């Protein structure tokens, strides 16, 4: 029985290994392509490069002005994550503790209804409005991610807030803590696991998003990493290895973080779906 079980285990492992090729082969292709010359790429297909052209990365680095693209992406992502964590958890706390009031309940549904409003529907008016308000820039994007994530994050947070016993807050109130003090010093730290989940999901969204930066960022000097890949397509078409080097540099920062924080990221996403 045990032996049968372990051979079954090995067979399934082999199956998983074969299936993982669907992910590894495109990535392998991206890496070898980034290291070839255009002439070599045309004839070698999936093969390894004969000479490793590391220059492609240097070319892509200066061509797309990689450092400033990286800074733009990082500023927007960090800004969106911080502002989302602070504001969305606070709103969820205040709403959940006052759900017995009719207007608070109505407000809750007002926020949740946003889940049914896909961005393309309001895209044209929003773009006009951000231009008029002068926030067609990184700051505007940070605000938009914070607002558009609110509906989903509220659902994640409120069930978690409900599970925090009122007694803890009451005893703090008896000790003279204000409502703000209670939130920052007691509730917010207790929300830790859900903060991690919301932070991970917001980070992945803001970092990888293409449509919002495409329509909101009007200054050509500010492009996020994905947006830069789009903007440089015309120049990339004459030199694919440089394009692939640029793609790899754009995905590298988050992939590196993921390699080290993989368990934490996956358990965070799982927690979000088990709420």
């Amino acid at each position: 029985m045990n032996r049968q079980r372990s051979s079954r285990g090995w067979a399934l492992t082999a199956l998983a290994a074969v299936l993982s090729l669907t992910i590894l082969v495109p990535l392998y292709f991206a890496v070898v392509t980034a290291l070839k010359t255009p002439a070599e790429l045309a004839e070698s297909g999936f093969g390894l490069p004969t000479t490793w052209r590391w220059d492609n990365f240097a070319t892509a680095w200066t061509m797309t002005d990689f450092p400033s693209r990286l800074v733009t992406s990082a500023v927007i992502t960090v800004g969106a994550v911080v502002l989302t964590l602070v504001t969305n958890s606070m709103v969820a706390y205040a709403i959940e503790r006052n759900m017995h009031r009719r207007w608070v309940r109505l407000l809750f549904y007002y926020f949740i209804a946003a889940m049914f409003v896909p961005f393309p529907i309001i895209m044209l008016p929003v773009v006009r409005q951000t231009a008029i308000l002068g926030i067609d820039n990184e700051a505007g994007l940070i605000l938009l991610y914070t607002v558009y994530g609110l509906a989903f994050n509220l659902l994640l947070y409120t069930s978690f807030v409900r599970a925090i016993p009122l007694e803890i807050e009451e005893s703090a109130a008896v000790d003279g803590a204000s409502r703000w003090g209670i939130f920052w010093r007691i509730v917010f730290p207790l929300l830790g696991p859900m903060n991690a989940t919301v932070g991970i999901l917001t980070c992945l969204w803001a970092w990888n998003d293409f449509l919002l930066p495409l329509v909101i960022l009007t200054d050509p000097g500010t492009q996020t990493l994905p947006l830069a890949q789009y903007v440089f397509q015309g120049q990339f078409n004459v030199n694919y290895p440089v394009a692939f080097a640029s793609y790899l540099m754009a995905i590298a920062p988050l992939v590196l973080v993921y390699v080290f924080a993989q368990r934490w990221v996956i358990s965070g996403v799982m927690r979000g779906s088990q709420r």
Partner: protein
Amino acid sequence: MQTTSPGRIDRAYVWMIAPAAILFTAMLTIPLLTGFFYTFTNYAGYGDWRFVGFANYLNLFRDDVVWGSYAFTLLYAVSATILINVIALSLALLLNSAIKAQTFFRGLFFLPNILPVLIVAYIFQYLFTNNLPAIGQALGWEWLSTSLLANENTAWMVIVFVGVWQAVAFSTIVYLAGLQTVPEEVYEAAAIDGASRWEQFRRMTFPLIMPFFTINMVLSFKNSLGVFDQVVALTNGGPGTATQSISFLIFRNGFQGGEYAYQTANGIIYFILVLVISFAQLRFLSSKDTNA
């Protein structure tokens, strides 16, 4: 007790909610309402405008390009949702079974979700334009010897393939989370009953993870309806207008075609479609939920 007293609300709570409520209204509700207002005008996004009544809506129904984008988007969303969920559920079952290096494989299969859709689609765009036709020619397979992306009957399949490749990662993790809520005893009881693996899955496991199936179906369908990045990177709406999704059409003609009012009206129709489908889906799936 202060927190649940029916009396006046603690002012601090109001200050916690007010900024978000104002921002939410400014960034979401007001654009939705002003957009709706402009759908009754001939506004191009700049310059003068006048009221045109329901002309935009009536024209939408007579516009073949618009019909084409709805047909493509629905075809994409339905096929992608089915494929995503079938593959993700099978993969989750595999990753939840007694395989070696479980953590490693979970990490690997989630990797596509870490990558930007646009860049993934650019990589596949090259593969489908250059490498696959080369393989097709070498093997003498007629259907693969030219780019599938250049053929208006097959281009949509490539977009589905790339969309599914990416979206399976997230759905798999959601199913895995569901499978972990199934207690070990359920399997033991089933094993004693002598139920086959398929029966075990159908009668025990699947009903228990039904809520996760619901979440995944609703989320993947909603996300698929918004397909945009893949279209930009793989076909740019082509060949011709064969793969213009609704979001892509609103973007392209709304910004570059001076069709602000017209494409916003398109957005309103799209909104109604999303609402109807979401509610139908939730009703259908939640009725299954309680029957199970």
